[in-house]
């Protein structure tokens, strides 16, 4: 009897914690959707800010986030894929592999603001790219590199060994096998990794704080050396700078909603795709 009561108590505590968690997390999403939706209009999405950021749209911030994200992926994908191919297809097990694995794990744990410092010192100052799309993209690219490597590696690992053996048996060299048989088979998995990284890169603020982002820019960026507005930074700036919080807060809600939709949609698609893809190989 006593055991049963304890069990019931314990299980209700566990259930309670799930309920609280869901209330918090779903509540945040609900809040942003409900308050942000009224701000969203065609004009908000496609026009430039007016009246000192208190009216008009946020199109330059959307465009800026797009450029930064695309730049980050263009930089990180080839590097990450090459690294995954090496680890999975070429690498002899041993010391070198362990070192590379360790550095990937540690790089993944570096705080995002530290990436910002690195980007500031290396890309902005040392290489002289200035506060620009280029500096921001490279910084974000390094940040998403570990995620791209892990996802690509998982995808390559899921390619059945028989595909490699069949290709080699037909007289293909190792590189031909990798290029024509292994990578094509792994593309869906690699893509999910890329999509997840897009969500991550689009939402990061701290790395672009000193490398790419600006609040007061009216027009669109003209080259990769322009500084840009970006959605996450725009939310921060609207909430902490400026003199008309009552006009700026609704715009921030709108930006938060756009950002949330981009990030959640992108990661939901990636996660669903990945789960399908995983089970396709298991069964």
């Amino acid at each position: 009897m006593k055991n049963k009561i304890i069990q019931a108590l314990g299980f209700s505590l566990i259930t309670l914690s799930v309920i609280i968690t869901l209330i918090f997390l779903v509540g945040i999403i609900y809040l942003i959707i409900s308050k942000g939706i009224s701000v969203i209009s065609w004009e908000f999405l496609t026009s430039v800010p007016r009246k000192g950021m208190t009216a008009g749209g946020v199109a330059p911030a959307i465009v800026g986030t797009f450029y930064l994200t695309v730049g980050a992926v263009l930089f990180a994908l080839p590097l990450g894929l090459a690294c995954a191919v090496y680890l999975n297809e070429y690498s002899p097990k041993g010391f070198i592999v362990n070192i590379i694995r360790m550095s990937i794990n540690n790089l993944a744990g570096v705080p995002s603001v530290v990436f910002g410092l690195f980007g500031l010192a290396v890309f902005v100052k040392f290489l002289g790219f200035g506060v620009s799309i280029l500096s921001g993209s490279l910084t974000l690219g390094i940040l998403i590199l570990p995620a791209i490597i892990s996802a690509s590696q998982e995808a390559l690992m899921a390619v059945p060994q028989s595909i490699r053996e069949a290709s080699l048996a037909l007289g293909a060299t190792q590189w031909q096998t990798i290029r024509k048989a292994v990578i094509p088979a792994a593309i869906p998995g690699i893509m999910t990794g890329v999509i997840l990284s897009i969500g991550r890169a689009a939402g990061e603020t701290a790395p672009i704080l000193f490398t790419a982002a600006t609040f007061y820019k009216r027009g669109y960026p003209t080259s990769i050396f322009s500084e840009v507005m970006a959605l996450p930074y725009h939310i921060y700036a609207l909430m902490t700078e400026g003199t008309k919080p009552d006009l700026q807060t609704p715009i921030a809600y709108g930006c938060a909603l756009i950002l949330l939709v981009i990030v959640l949609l992108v990661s939901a698609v990636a996660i669903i795709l990945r789960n399908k893809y995983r089970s396709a190989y298991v069964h």
Partner: protein
Amino acid sequence: MYNLKERLIKILFTVLAFASLFFLLGIVFVLFKESLPIVFELNIFKFLTGTHWYPTHEPAEFGILPLMMASLWVTVGAMFVCIPLGIGTALYVNELASLRQKQFLKPVIEILSGIPSIVYGFFGMLIMAPLIQQIFNIPTGLNALTASIVLGIMAIPTVASISEDALSFVPKSFKEASYALGANRWQTLIKVIIPAAASGISTSIILGMSRVVGETMTVLMVSGGAAVMPRSFFDPVRPMTSTIAAEMGEAAVGSIHYHSLFAIGLILFLVTLVFNAFAEMISRKYRIKLGLDR
């Protein structure tokens, strides 16, 4: 000819594979190089233990103890939120959820872990801070308590998903053996499953902590920003991350202020490095213990 091409390609891939190591070492190098000047300009002991952070005063004072204490307080506070809720969620998903709930909850938790930190900061500023201010009737809702709660919520998905992985790795036979001995589900959970997954669960906590310590935008927006020694959880504080983010824009390149912000970054980097090393060590031991290591 063919052989040469194959070899060259292999060498190319080998070189590219070192990118992560290259960037990691690059980060270490840059942080050390840019913080080094403070060794000559300031007393390191005073830098680490000084309680006054007045970087723009005349004369300026650079004591980062208040910033480190703020990070410590906020991180510990966040743990009180994310450990029970995160592990509770993991236990529910693993033990109590029906198959359909599981299929819903697992991806949802993963998707939620992708919510950008700026959104948590935004939520903290607009909802949590006024709420805390009203409940406790205090002058400002932007303080260590609010920062802890918001950071804690943010870290729940991290703790929950890694803990859940650990729980699902516990072999079924452990559970069956326990039931066979007459233990009920709760007893099995507390005395068999949780201890068997303990190292995985601790890994999740350490990684959650690592994420909280390094989190920038949320604390920048909700912690209040006062660089003084925290006396209570209702005080506004200024953790290390938000100090860097808030002041780097104003600090003149090459000034002592600039270099000390890099030094704070270095400390932050080392702290998370230690956390990650711990997490790695624990999870490796645990995989061997359960016979999961290939």
